[in-house]
């Protein structure tokens, strides 16, 4: 079992970045932004945007943060707007 796991590990080159995904077990994660009480994505809401950006300001891929595709598009546009204003 361990050998198969290691093979899967080496494939995803973002493995060291996958802070959001416990690599012990792979379960279907729900998107944290599209639930009912989810925070609204807004280019002014930097506290939320900072969660989906690496330390040097790159946008985390949705494969890592398990965000749905629709929310990931909104997220990337609002991050780019916040960058333009110098907020992020």
């Amino acid at each position, binding site marked *: 079992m361990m050998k198969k796991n290691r093979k899967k590990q080496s494939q995803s080159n973002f493995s060291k970045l996958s802070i959001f995904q416990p690599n012990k077990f792979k379960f279907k994660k729900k998107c944290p932004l599209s639930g009912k009480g989810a925070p*609204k994505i*807004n*280019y*002014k*809401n*930097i*506290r939320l945007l900072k969660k989906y950006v690496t330390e040097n*300001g790159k946008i985390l891929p949705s494969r890592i943060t398990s965000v749905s595709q629709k929310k990931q598009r909104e997220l990337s546009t609002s991050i780019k*707007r916040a*960058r*333009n*204003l*110098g*907020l*992020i």
Partner: protein
Amino acid sequence: MNLYEHTIVARQDTTQNQINQLKEKYTKIIEKFDGNILKTEDWGLMQLSYIIKNNKKGNFIHFKLEGDGKMINELEKNEKIDKNLLRYLTVKVKKFDLEENFFNKTDKHDQLNNDEKK
């Protein structure tokens, strides 16, 4: 009548009355093109995450406008030539949430003169 969120970033060393002059100047332009301002937010001096025209901090002013495209073109044309503005950003929005303010000052002083201005 479209709804716009317009943010401008003024330079670091603009004094308070210069900021007020900026506000008056742009409100006059907006009134001239029969748009109206629903809310102005003064986010104050904030740290920029990178240096823009060798300014580390910027004075942010945020308008919530209602008007048509011609007004926005005129507004942005003036902002291009304005010396003490670093950046401006206009976002067309479906609807506003007016009371949501992410950058409101915690200290009482700023809150006070915000209410007087409104």
